[in-house]
């Protein structure tokens, strides 16, 4: 019988309490020294063939018979009132089948508002109208024929301008509102009594996700059921969003995401494009495709907020005695704010601490979660400042960190960590990079005008996962199994590691386990975000597989007329003392059977704090004439519990490091203050790393010890940790190499040269 239990989970730095439905008992952790056939072994991706042959079907690849194409008219102004829309000419264009806008669209709830077409549009790129037509070209032409009467209103797009007194007020209570705050000890007193105080301002620029598959949906309505194919990290979230927007019962909505081309946090729920596609589908009775262009992706599909952060750190007797951290983040038209002070609050056991995070609204595109939202920005400031304090105090940066990084207790919530090996990460990383070679003031580089330096920074993140997450395992009569769950594989290898867990627990060969996911007709799976997929879904899969195995052994006991306790399953074979019988042979004797194993994720221990830890070390050279940074070696060490698949885990870390490299060195959205336009909404001028930007060496290391208190597999998440500390490690290495402190990410050549000039003037 299912029962309701209280659960407490962390998601992207916030703690949530909820009631969840669980059944039966959780499995114990596999015994120490247990032999695994799949878990812990490097395996090729189970969907590799689909992905390398072009057969993997992404949302963009769904073409349904009779499908119409939608294009969206977007506001050319950063803030304006839509007074009138004339669509007569557009509707007269042959091939145009429908136009939606604020005067004719039905109410559709979206992010707390009643409509997707607002009277006051608030950023360049906001949706004003949509056209459905026979092909995309006709839809584009029709957009040009729509006449809109805009009343222009004063706007502000820049973070620091929006905080100031002269900016237009976008909300009745102003542009700035308080997000999170945390206080412990007495910061004022610690600052007064300190031997050393470091005070500095850091900035991070807006980063654009640029998932290669843009946001998009294909919707089909058959009069009874709405089927939406969507490139999403959460099919159930999209279904819920459509339910609220369209007021349909859940049973009538099915959302499917088989393959998806990257999300990095930005595809967390329903989009206006999904609602527009659905509205047209229901109105016109034809399948509708609404897929964003690259430019639309870069103006209207989310971003990592730009931040302004003030840090004040106090040191005394070789220790950090206080941290004060204040952050302002430009959320555009977003309704929430990621918390850059999260790492400050939790990473170090510092007794006196005060942090505040402010949300600042502007007339720019909304933030959306971007791989470790807040933590990437906040860690850049925190870990840069720690190094600045260490330099002021004349102590080694790792020595200073070690004094505060070893605590077994979460300093913010006061609970014990389920497990923690941060000091081990420092030890491994320092050895790999050759920290003993690091000299204060750096060393000479490969040419007289090049300086060489080493730096490091620390990572903390959640990733403990939790309920709800469910899975079923169907075993067919030929001895193959189908694992079904509602989670998604956004490119992280979810299909592969879940198949490994399932095969291992069932006693099947990996190729006999087929994984079906990304479908709301499946048992519930959580959002593929917050580094929670494996730690949430994995334990449920293990229980489902165990359930199926027990049933199979029961069936085998009956067929073989042998006590169940004398049987075991290995590689799809039922093994008894004297004999080996293929499971398919046993099942073939029972006519047309289906064995179904069920599993659900059990709650976390509410008295523990589940976190992931890590550290990155960087060696680089700086060309002091041009300001160019050449990252030569990145060592990434992570403590995320048991590693299920070393191959895919390593790939994920390398990918995180490279995305971090973009944030650290080249990626930066530019918005023109006068017109509110994004000046580089394309892959030509917005610089994501290319193959030529890859450091000569990336070393990936894992502590690889099961977190025995986390869940029945001892696993935690890895999606976000590897993007968190890299930028600060780079800034710290640049400071080591040159004495110049760059406090604005990305560390472009111009910023490096400016910092070099300031450092030169000081010395």
């Amino acid at each position, binding site marked *: 019988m299912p029962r309701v239990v209280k659960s407490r989970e962390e998601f992207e730095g916030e703690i949530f309490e909820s009631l969840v439905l669980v059944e039966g008992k959780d499995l114990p952790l596999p015994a120490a020294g247990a032999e695994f056939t799949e878990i812990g072994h490097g395996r*090729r*991706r189970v*969907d*590799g*063939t689909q*992905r*390398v*042959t*072009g*057969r*993997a*079907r*992404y949302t*963009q*690849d769904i*073409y349904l018979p009779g499908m119409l194409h939608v294009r969206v008219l977007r506001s050319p102004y950063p803030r304006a009132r839509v007074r009138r829309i004339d669509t007569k000419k557009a509707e007269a264009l042959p091939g145009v089948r429908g136009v939606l806008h604020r005067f004719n669209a039905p109410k559709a709830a979206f992010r707390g508002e009643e409509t997707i077409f607002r009277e006051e549009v608030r950023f360049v790129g906001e949706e004003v109208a949509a056209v459905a037509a026979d092909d995309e*070209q006709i839809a584009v032409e029709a957009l040009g024929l729509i006449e809109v009467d805009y009343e222009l209103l004063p706007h502000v797009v820049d973070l620091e301008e929006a905080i100031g007194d002269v900016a237009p007020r976008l909300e009745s209570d102003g542009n700035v509102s308080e997000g999170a705050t945390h206080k412990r000890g007495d910061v004022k007193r610690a600052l007064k009594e300190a031997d050393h105080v470091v005070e500095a301002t850091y900035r991070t620029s807006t980063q654009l*996700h*640029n*998932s*290669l*598959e*843009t946001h998009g949906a294909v919707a089909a309505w058959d009069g009874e059921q709405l089927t939406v194919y969507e490139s999403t990290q959460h099919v159930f979230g999209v279904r819920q969003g459509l339910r609220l927007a369209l007021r349909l019962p859940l049973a009538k909505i099915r959302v499917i995401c088989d*393959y*998806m*081309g*990257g999300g*990095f946090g930005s595809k967390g729920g329903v989009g206006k494009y999904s609602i527009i596609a659905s509205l047209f589908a229901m109105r016109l009775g034809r399948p509708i495709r609404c897929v964003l*262009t*690259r430019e639309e992706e870069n103006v209207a599909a989310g971003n990592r907020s730009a931040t302004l952060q003030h840090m004040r750190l106090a040191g005394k007797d070789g220790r950090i005695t206080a941290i004060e951290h204040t952050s302002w983040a430009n959320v555009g038209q977003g309704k929430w704010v990621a918390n850059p002070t999260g790492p400050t609050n939790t990473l170090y056991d510092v007794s006196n601490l005060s942090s505040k995070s402010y949300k600042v609204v502007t007339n720019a595109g909304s933030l959306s979660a971007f791989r470790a939202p807040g933590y990437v920005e906040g860690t850049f400031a925190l870990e840069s400042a720690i190094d600045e304090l260490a330099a002021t105090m004349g102590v080694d940066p790792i020595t200073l960190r070690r004094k505060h990084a070893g605590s077994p207790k979460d300093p913010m919530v006061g609970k014990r960590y389920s497990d923690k090996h941060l000091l081990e990460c420092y030890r491994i990383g320092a050895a790999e990079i050759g920290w003993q070679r690091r000299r204060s003031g750096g060393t000479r580089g490969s040419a007289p005008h090049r300086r060489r330096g080493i730096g490091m920074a620390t990572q903390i993140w959640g990733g403990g996962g939790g309920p709800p997450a469910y899975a079923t395992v169907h075993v067919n009569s030929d001895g193959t199994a189908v694992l079904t769950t509602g989670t998604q594989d*956004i*490119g*992280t*290898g979810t299909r592969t590691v879940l198949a490994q867990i399932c095969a291992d627990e069932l006693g099947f060969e990996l190729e006999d386990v087929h994984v079906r996911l990304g479908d709301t007709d499946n048992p519930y799976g959580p959002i593929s975000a917050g580094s929670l997929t494996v730690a949430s879904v994995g334990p449920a899969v293990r229980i489902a597989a165990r359930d199926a195995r027990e049933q199979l052994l029961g069936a085998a006991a009956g067929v073989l007329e042998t006590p169940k306790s004398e049987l075991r399953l290995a590689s799809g074979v039922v093994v008894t003392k004297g004999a080996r019988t293929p499971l398919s042979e046993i099942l073939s004797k029972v006519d047309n059977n289906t064995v179904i194993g069920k599993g659900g994720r059990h709650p976390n221990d509410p008295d523990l704090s589940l976190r992931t830890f890590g550290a990155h070390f960087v060696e680089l050279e700086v060309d002091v004439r041009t300001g160019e940074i050449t990252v030569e070696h990145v060592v990434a060490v992570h403590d995320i519990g048991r590693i299920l698949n070393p*191959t*895919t885990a*390593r*790939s*994920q870390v*390398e*990918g*995180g*490091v*490279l*995305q971090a490299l973009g944030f650290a060195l080249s990626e930066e959205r530019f918005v023109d203050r006068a017109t509110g336009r994004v000046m580089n909404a*394309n*892959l*030509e001028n917005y610089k*994501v*790393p*290319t*193959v*030529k930007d*890859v450091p000569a060496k*990336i070393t990936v290391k894992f502590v690889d010890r099961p977190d025995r208190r986390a869940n029945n597999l001892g696993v935690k998440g890895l999606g976000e940790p590897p993007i968190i500390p890299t930028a600060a490690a780079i800034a710290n290495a640049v400071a080591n190499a040159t004495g110049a402190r760059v406090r604005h990410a990305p560390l472009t050549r111009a910023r490096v040269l400016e910092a070099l000039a300031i450092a030169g003037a000081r010395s």
Partner: protein
Amino acid sequence: MLRGPGATDISLTVNGEAVTVQVAPRRTLLDTLRETLGLTGTKKVCDEGTCGACTVLIDGRPVYACMTLAVTCEGKGVETIEGLAKDGELHPVQRAFIDEDAFQCGFCTPGQIMSIVALLRGTAAPTEDDVRRAVSGNLCRCGAYPNIVAAGVSAGRRKR
């Protein structure tokens, strides 16, 4: 033959098969492959020649299909990701991509693979630098680059 100014028939070879398609002069090879011929393995990412996801081979040369008008392909041989595997057997570059874990979301993968296939035809045993040059016009947002380079080098060592 009188052509244009509207849609016109063109004949070309796609993955070894002769096809005739009717295309408007402004239609790209990418849209023709994806929408007219149903070959959706070639991806549309930027549609403006900046990312390489739509890389296909025209007469053996890698090109961006989004920057190529279909009407210019009359009489030419186009190869796409769908044409690489023969008789159910993967092309060595495809196998190398799986073995080296050279993709995550897989959206850039068809383009990366086509760029390396073109490289291998001229350079049987490429160095890491050769592979880097070959895929320098192919963006990967997941950051699979180190494994893509490894796959290119290892594919060069394999025999079909």
